[in-house]
């Protein structure tokens, strides 16, 4: 199986409360770039689908990673190569030249060139929190989608059974490849991904794999090509225009209560919520 995984780097999500707004502009100065966590899960999922978990060094298929960003964004690609992806593509562009729609349209052109069996993406990037590229891409390609995947079972190379995490529980879909699947948090649990290469008894460690130093060195030699946005689409118009940013209203400072009876009293007579 050949899998394409789009990646995005985001300002450190664990310090998202440190973003600043200055004269209507958003500033993330001082925040380190990190791979979008959901995209890391997508890479991990792609690796699990293309290997025997008991011998993860031999790839049974191909995993191609792609990002849209400046030269520095290659760090994100190299990180994915170090964990096992085969090759990488960087579309040379900056975030302010993009919106989700343009990314999806450019990706659809890339898919036409690369012809993967599956596009695996994170369900959302945790900077813009839009949750849209996978669905847009699927529609532009005329492919089926399975969003918010908490589990994936690959029975053969023709279809996947995907457990989608939805508001009321789990919806199980069988999608015929090629398809787009966007992954949710639980996809990296020890038994969430079942590939035909890995014995059912195998348990993955919880979470994503880390690259060994040797693999990080070796990843520097893996193929990474640069493309221009114009190689993929002649229409670089954006459909969404961000006009300003503000900080959300602050919550008023609360108090600490000393006991349960005091808490109940406050809820009853002060907050009046009982």
């Amino acid at each position, binding site marked *: 199986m050949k899998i394409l995984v789009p990646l995005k780097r985001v300002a450190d999500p664990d310090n*998202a*409360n440190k*973003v600043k*707004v200055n004269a209507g502009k*958003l500033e993330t100065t001082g925040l380190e770039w990190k791979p979008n966590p*959901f995209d890391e899960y997508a890479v991990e999922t792609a690796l699990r689908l293309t290997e025997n978990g008991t011998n993860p060094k031999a790839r049974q298929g191909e995993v191609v990673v792609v990002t849209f960003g400046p030269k520095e964004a290659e760090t994100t690609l190299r990180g994915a190569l170090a964990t096992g992806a085969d090759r990488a593509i960087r579309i040379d562009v900056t975030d302010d030249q993009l*919106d*989700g*729609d343009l990314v*999806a349209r450019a990706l659809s052109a890339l898919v036409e060139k690369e012809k993967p069996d599956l596009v695996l993406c994170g369900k959302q990037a*945790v900077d813009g*929190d*839009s*949750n*849209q590229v996978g*669905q*847009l891409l*699927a*529609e*532009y390609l*005329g492919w*089926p*989608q399975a969003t918010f995947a*908490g589990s994936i079972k690959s029975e053969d190379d023709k279809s996947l059974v995907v*457990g*989608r995490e*939805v*508001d*009321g*529980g789990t*919806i*199980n*879909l069988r*999608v*015929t490849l090629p398809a787009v699947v966007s992954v*949710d*948090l*639980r996809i990296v649990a020890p038994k969430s991904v079942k590939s035909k290469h890995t014995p059912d008894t195998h348990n993955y460690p919880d979470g994503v794999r880390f690259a060994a130093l040797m693999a990080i060195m070796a990843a520097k030699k893996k193929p990474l090509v640069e493309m221009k946005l114009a190689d993929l689409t002649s229409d670089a*118009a954006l*459909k*969404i*225009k*961000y*006009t300003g*940013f*503000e*900080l*959300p209203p602050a*919550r008023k400072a*609360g*108090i*600490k209560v000393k006991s*349960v009876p005091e*808490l*109940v*009293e406050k*809820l*009853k007579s002060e*907050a009046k*919520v009982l």
Partner: protein
Amino acid sequence: MASKILVVAEMHADAVRKSTHSAITFARQAGLPFAILVLGKGAKAAAAEVTGFGAQKVIVVDDAYLEHQVAERFAPSIAAVAKSGGFDVVVVTASSFGKDVGPRVAAKLEAGYAPDINGVKADGGKLVYRRPVFAGNAYASCELTSPVQVVSVRQSEFTAAEPSGGSSPVEDAALAAKDPAADRVEFVSLEAAKSERPDLGEARVIVSGGRALKEKFAEVLDPLAGLLGAAVGASRAACDAGYAPAELQVGQTGRVVAPQLYFAIGISGAIQHLAGMKGSKTIVAINKDPDAPIFQVADYGLVADLFNAVPELVTELKKATA
């Protein structure tokens, strides 16, 4: 210039889901005429529920093909109704259904998509949207530049609309031509969460628990939730550890809630969790770590061992509300 809104209703168990009322609120706030599209199996009967909200009309696509929520089945009919009716704004509530189908509809209509907005302002016929970014740590203002727009609205920020009287005419629309992509998706099953409790998106009170509860998650929280008629939520850590099912997760990437009263029990308050509940009216935190970040957003914090404090809270609440 936006002129006419199509509100897409979501159905569940032969009825219109209450989350739809948030999309109706959006239409009212935008101040434009709107119609409501009810589509699904049994939509005709369900449509009666939304005829009293001031819509110009209620459009129904009732077909067994739309029994299960499969985006590839719904998107063609939503797009077709939007096109034939000349609607230039299509709105869904940002539920898992809305998030799944909204972008597909946008791509079909060559429309821009404003996801998960928490505010709208009409600026001389132009709609300006506000949406939380960076886990709700900043609000962005944005506009869509395309002739047709698709929007998903955050249920917790658009208070459910109440009926305004009147009776919108109901008209039928045909199921649109099937999407070839739909032939490549097969609905296998729905594992519905079995719960007697209210839905997280609609509850007045939510009792949420964290990893600290361990295997006693339900044992400790159920009596409190039962007493208050509350929905039960959970932190990501509690879901990941298997103490609570995934659909209970409250946070940036789970459910976003804003009840009247939110109990965070044994929840440290990671940024991702705060993003999902900061809009709650009154927040109570119970945690044994006095430095837990949750106390920074809590109106009332109690530093205590939850295994003692929660049962005591149940006893005291019974006394106070007796």
